[in-house]
């Protein structure tokens, strides 16, 4: 186990140390202490590391993550796991706005609540939120899955493409072109797997599925005069 004191050694040294590690490294277990809300902690990791941040983080923690498992034992600031490619990011507390934005792969697990715009423009990432998500979550989400065990705020899935949204609690309102869809057996199976990966014991049968009505992003000849 490598213990890195962020306050003493600084952010650049941390990220340079993590970036220097390649796929065959033996130094895979890392603990980062004294994060004190710093920005850009463990951004751009590209190796199968297991990193635990002991405390709360600022902007963009675990951004662009590839392969690593990164756990924040605290709350995460805006843009956690932004543009993640693969691996797993786990937030023990709450996440601020646009968690998992533009994520292309991997799994983001938020044990508390996520604020607004969770999963905005997601492109393949799977996000499991144990609590609630704020307004405009999954805005323009293209692919991947967003699972919300609590409630969703206003305008869920506005301008949605092909991401799948599963919500157990209430949805304050659906955004443009987002509709409720039938929960077929294959969706229950998909959701069961997502919940296991998300360390969540919720019952998949309690969720509703939402997706795109596909009216907004397809060109409609009847609207030609509007362009």
């Amino acid at each position: 186990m490598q213990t890195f004191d962020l306050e003493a050694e600084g952010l650049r040294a941390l990220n340079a140390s993590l970036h220097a590690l390649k796929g065959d490294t033996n130094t895979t277990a890392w603990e980062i202490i004294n994060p004190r809300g710093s920005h850009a902690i463990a951004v751009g990791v590209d190796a199968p590391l297991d990193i635990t941040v002991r405390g709360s983080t600022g902007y963009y923690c675990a951004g662009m993550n590839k392969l690593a498992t990164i756990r924040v034992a605290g709350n995460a600031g805006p843009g956690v796991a932004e543009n993640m490619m693969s691996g797993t990011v786990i937030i023990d507390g709450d996440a601020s706005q646009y968690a998992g934005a533009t994520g292309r792969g991997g799994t983001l697990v938020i044990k508390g609540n996520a604020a607004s715009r969770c999963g905005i423009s997601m492109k393949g990432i799977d996000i499991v939120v144990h609590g609630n998500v704020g307004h405009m979550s999954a805005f323009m989400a293209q692919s991947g899955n967003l699972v919300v065990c609590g409630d969703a705020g206003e305008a869920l899935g506005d301008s949605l493409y092909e991401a799948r949204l599963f919500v157990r609690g209430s949805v304050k309102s659906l955004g443009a072109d987002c509709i409720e869809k039938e929960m077929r057996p294959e969706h229950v199976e998909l959701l069961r797997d997502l919940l296991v990966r998300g360390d969540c014991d919720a019952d998949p049968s309690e969720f509703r599925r939402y997706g795109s009505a596909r009216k907004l992003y397809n060109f409609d000849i009847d609207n030609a005069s509007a362009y």
Partner: protein
Amino acid sequence: MCGIVGLFLKDRALEPRLGALLTEMLVTMTDRGPDSAGIAVYRGAEPGKWLLTVQSAAPDRDFAGLADDLGAALGAAVTLREKDTHAVIELPAGKADAARTALKELRPDLRIMGSGESIEIYKEVGLPGDVAARFDLASMSGSHGIGHTRMATESAVTTLGAHPFSTGPDQCLVHNGSLSNHNSLRRKLVQAGKSFETENDTEVAAAYLSWKMEQGSDLGEALEASLQDLDGFYTFVVGTRDGFGVLRDPIACKPAVMAETDQYVAFGSEYRAMVNLPGIETARVWEPEPSTVYFWKH
């Protein structure tokens, strides 16, 4: 981008440390707003006394003999505490309006930054750490305070353009964001009798809240009304003589974190502004919801 910090003390034992705690929070927010910085501190009100915080670009000229000149004009005892470009004038409560009129004659270049029973406001252009040192903010005690670090986006980087803005007795406002309907709202408020020192959008929001409170609203109601009447992006933190409020616009893209313990309620644009507060490890930490008025009172 701007940085906001705020601290509302519940535990009076912390009051001597208010300035020191707020200064540390303010300086941490330097990279959100290196242009200018300001702080409003609420100190214990003395019955019958009124405080005017004034600012001068030429303090040596304007502050010299001012207490005596103003005292003579008002026929009352007046004291003056000088701090760099600012001074706090203490006078009998009934003389506040007369003092404003007299100051226009006596020292026409003075600017009144704030007035009330307990508010003192200090703001200047420069790095937050330098501004804090010039006014020795760390030594100030008080019951609550609000600070702001500014990265200007819509009006000039000047002392008067810095936050907090105060447009009513013991009231102040700091703002992260930008308002889009401030010009039309300013015209309406001018018609309603409010006057403005700057072209700044935040001053309009402050005047709007003051105007609402003059109409009989309390701070919470005034903030609720602003959700209808203000258009744009904002995270506001507002102070009154005994209160502390927070409001975010419905989109809520300007960051905000709050922390509460038995000893205090704290606000930061980012969590890192609060990491040195006592007991932060066990505080309840949360992100304030959009379109939701948060308000604490002593």
